């Protein structure tokens, strides 16, 4: 249909342009973001379309009462419902879910600004089954019986829909869709809309089904000619670094090594695939910890504290603590550089971005604190944090009543053994984040805004945060690790670094600062990837904060950093692209030595092949062939049948005519042939 380039050369001088029939019929959607299917040990969640796409007549929903048209009274089911964001609520979606075949799909128009009242598609009690509180460990605190952490959660992300749900931006393309609806589909003054009607077709067919055990079994069956993978386990890599180099080849317990773990979480999610800005839920925490690590870089080199600080960034925490459960599992099985006996205490940085009154809260686990020695250590850590906060215009406090820990990676450490630890958050009880794990948890949620008319370079440098929390965390970690008092005042986090990181992770990652670190291929959305993606950008950032520049490698493609005195079991060596000096365009790359490494963040359930495990995360993501959508006009069913009938009739009549002509061939086409009964 579209290969008419041959003809266009001949016809172009005649003023006729080349047109493809397909382009005249269909308008393709440029921005296709859909919800995908995820599976765990018992359920499947997400959306599914049919193999040939779901077709439905467009209907822009005006109000919740207008649902009656879609579900009962509309004369042309199935309908493709366009929802404006105020109508994207649990009640509307549940009614559509029970639409029994009249709903072909949903497209949600995402607004340009966050809704005022908050929206969280996550559950009210995140990760309730894989935390530390359970029937055996303080059942009164399990299942959010004491504190509901995410009260605005409507649980939409964990529902199963049998139609596709796409997200549209509020731009010109969506206006085309709305206009198509107004032109063709609008029922005016009680009359039913006439054919042809505007329709949309959405493709998001997911290959996996039922649950993780089924899809992993189907992955493994290899009878057919081209075996197909249907799903992938969620997981990626954790990033960790230590202030003192640890021998990476000697796994298991390290004698005389006492480690303070400073943890943060990297990932988040939203209702739709690959949109996971996670500004407050993820970025605020790890940016603070990265800035603290950067602030400590000199103090931990020159005046080394007694204990080693291990900075750990966990991936996949949204989905039942994939990263932290894997690290704890590795520590228990002597697969990690240290083991649980080496861990002295844990400080986790949770959601710290929305500090109302600049107040931060220190959450602890009351159950483990019933033990005297653990309680003493926790009190010490709280004391260190309080004293670090003095003079910084940041207040820290404990919640003041017996409250369980919020969902945090530290809970997985507590499942293994009672370790003293504190989780730093900006909420005393329930979350202050109104957009927890949603597509609205972006820079606007953190009040990170830039004056208008700034170029991207100026925006990169514009200070949006004063980095006081990072300074406090750095000083507290230094004290906790046994460092000297005199060094504390020199530990200061750099607001420039914090600002640049916030800009890079929340606004645009393809900026000059990130480009110095390496090839930034795609924007980091924060969604935990399936195992074959690389999450190397964060490791590079961590490198920069904990590293020493040792020598310049002179070539400009990434070579192995070769020099005779490399010690790969203690350090990790990486090539960094570097910046171009002012009077040249060639970047000067250099090798970087750091203690930052990656560690696998795949749930132990997949290594142990326990796909119905209740202890570990069993989340997998389905595979799909393509995700796309298009709009076109449909004719009525009667017209389609009439066209088909006419075609069949033409076929039969042509066969009849051919038969008649063939049987009378000798009369019609006689041309005086020789008689064929010649004798030999």
């Amino acid at each position, binding site marked *: 249909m579209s290969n008419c380039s041959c003809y266009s050369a001949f016809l172009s001088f005649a003023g006729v342009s080349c047109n493809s029939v397909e382009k005249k019929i269909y308008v393709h959607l440029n921005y296709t973001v859909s919800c995908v299917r995820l599976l765990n040990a018992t359920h499947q969640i997400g959306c*599914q379309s049919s*193999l040939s796409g779901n077709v439905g007549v467009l209907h822009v929903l005006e109000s919740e009462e207008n649902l009656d048209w879609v579900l009962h009274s509309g004369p042309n089911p199935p309908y493709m419902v366009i929802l404006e964001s105020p109508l994207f609520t649990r009640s509307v979606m549940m009614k559509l879910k029970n639409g029994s075949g009249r709903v072909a799909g949903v497209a949600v128009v995402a607004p340009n600004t966050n809704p005022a009242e908050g929206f969280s598609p996550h559950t009210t009690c995140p990760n309730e089954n894989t935390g530390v509180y359970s029937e055996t460990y303080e059942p009164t605190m399990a299942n959010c019986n004491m504190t509901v952490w995410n009260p605005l959660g409507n649980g939409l992300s964990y529902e199963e829909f049998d139609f596709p749900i796409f997200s549209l931006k509020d731009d010109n393309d969506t206006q085309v869709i709305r206009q198509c609806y107004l032109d063709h589909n609008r029922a005016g003054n009680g009359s039913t809309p006439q054919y042809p009607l505007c329709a949309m077709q959405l493709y998001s*067919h*997911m*290959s*996996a*089904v*039922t649950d993780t055990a*089924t899809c992993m*079994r*189907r992955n493994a*069956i290899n*009878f*057919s000619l081209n075996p*197909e993978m*249907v799903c992938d386990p969620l997981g990626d890599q954790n990033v960790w670094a230590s202030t003192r180099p640890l021998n990476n080849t000697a796994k298991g317990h390290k004698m005389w090594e006492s480690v303070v773990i400073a943890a943060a979480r990297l990932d988040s999610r939203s209702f739709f695939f690959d949109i996971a800005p996670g500004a407050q839920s993820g970025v605020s925490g790890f940016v603070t910890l990265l800035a603290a690590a950067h602030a400590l870089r000199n103090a931990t080199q020159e005046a080394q504290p007694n204990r080693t600080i291990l900075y750990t960034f966990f991936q996949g925490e949204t989905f039942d603590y994939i990263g932290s459960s894997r690290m704890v599992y590795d520590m228990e099985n002597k697969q990690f550089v240290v083991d649980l006996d080496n861990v002295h205490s844990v400080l986790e940085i949770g959601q710290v971005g929305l500090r109302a009154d600049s107040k931060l809260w220190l959450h602890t686990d009351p159950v483990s604190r019933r033990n005297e020695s653990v309680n003493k250590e926790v009190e010490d850590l709280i004391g260190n944090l309080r004293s670090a906060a003095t003079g910084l215009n940041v207040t820290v406090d404990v919640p003041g009543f017996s409250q369980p820990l919020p969902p945090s990676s530290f809970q997985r450490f507590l499942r293994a053994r009672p370790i003293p630890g504190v989780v730093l958050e900006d909420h005393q009880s329930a979350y202050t984040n109104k957009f927890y794990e949603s597509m609205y948890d972006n820079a606007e949620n953190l009040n990170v805004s830039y004056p208008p008319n700034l170029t991207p370079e100026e925006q990169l440098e514009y200070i949006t945060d004063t980095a006081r929390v990072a300074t406090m965390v750095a000083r507290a970690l230094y004290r906790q690790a046994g460092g000297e008092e005199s060094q504390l005042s020199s530990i200061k986090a750099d607001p420039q670094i914090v600002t640049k990181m916030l800009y890079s992770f929340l606004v645009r990652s393809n900026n000059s600062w990130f480009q110095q670190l390496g090839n930034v291929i795609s924007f980091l959305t924060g969604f935990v990837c399936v195992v074959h993606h690389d999450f190397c950008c964060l490791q590079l950032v961590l490198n920069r904060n904990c590293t020493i520049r040792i020598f310049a490698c002179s070539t400009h493609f990434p070579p192995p950093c070769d020099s005779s005195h490399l010690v790969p079991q203690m350090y990790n060596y990486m090539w960094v692209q570097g910046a171009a000096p002012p009077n040249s365009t060639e970047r000067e790359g250099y090798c970087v030595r750091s203690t930052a490494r990656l560690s696998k963040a795949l749930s132990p359930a997949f290594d142990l092949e326990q796909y119905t495990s209740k202890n570990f995360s069993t989340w997998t993501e389905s595979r799909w062939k393509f995700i796309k959508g298009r709009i076109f006009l449909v004719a009525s069913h009667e017209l389609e049948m009439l066209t088909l009938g006419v075609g069949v009739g033409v076929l039969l009549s042509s066969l009849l005519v051919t038969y008649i002509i063939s049987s009378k061939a000798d009369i019609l086409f006689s041309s005086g042939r020789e008689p*064929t*009964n010649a*004798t*030999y």
Partner: protein
Amino acid sequence: MSHIPDSRWRKAVKFSVCLTWKQQRGETKKNAIQKNKEEEVLSDCQHLVIWRRFSDFLALEISGGFAFLPFLWLVNVVWFFREAFVKPAYTEQLQIKTYVKRSALGLLLWVAVLTTWITIFQHFRAEWGEVGDYLSFTIPLGIP
């Protein structure tokens, strides 16, 4: 047979070949050589030809191990149905009849068994879970 009449030469060749067969089977009749019995001999031979072809086909089936294939039985029934039941009787027709009947019976049995199994499998494959997956050659994507 073609509606264009044979040439005399072809007729003569067929007559002599047929006579040889008949001699091989010990059925020579003196008056078969006479001309007015030619058509009788020829029609006899046609039956012999058909019988020859049929027995060759059966031998191929049995020797090649195809004797248990229901599709070949279908071919037997369809191809030789006219010879066995429609044409007027001749000596070899009885044997052809028995074999066609046997093939038809076997075919019906196979069809019944296969239909039943296919219905059951398609209906219950999803419920059988693991067993269903291991029995399947291709598993459809996206549906249980």
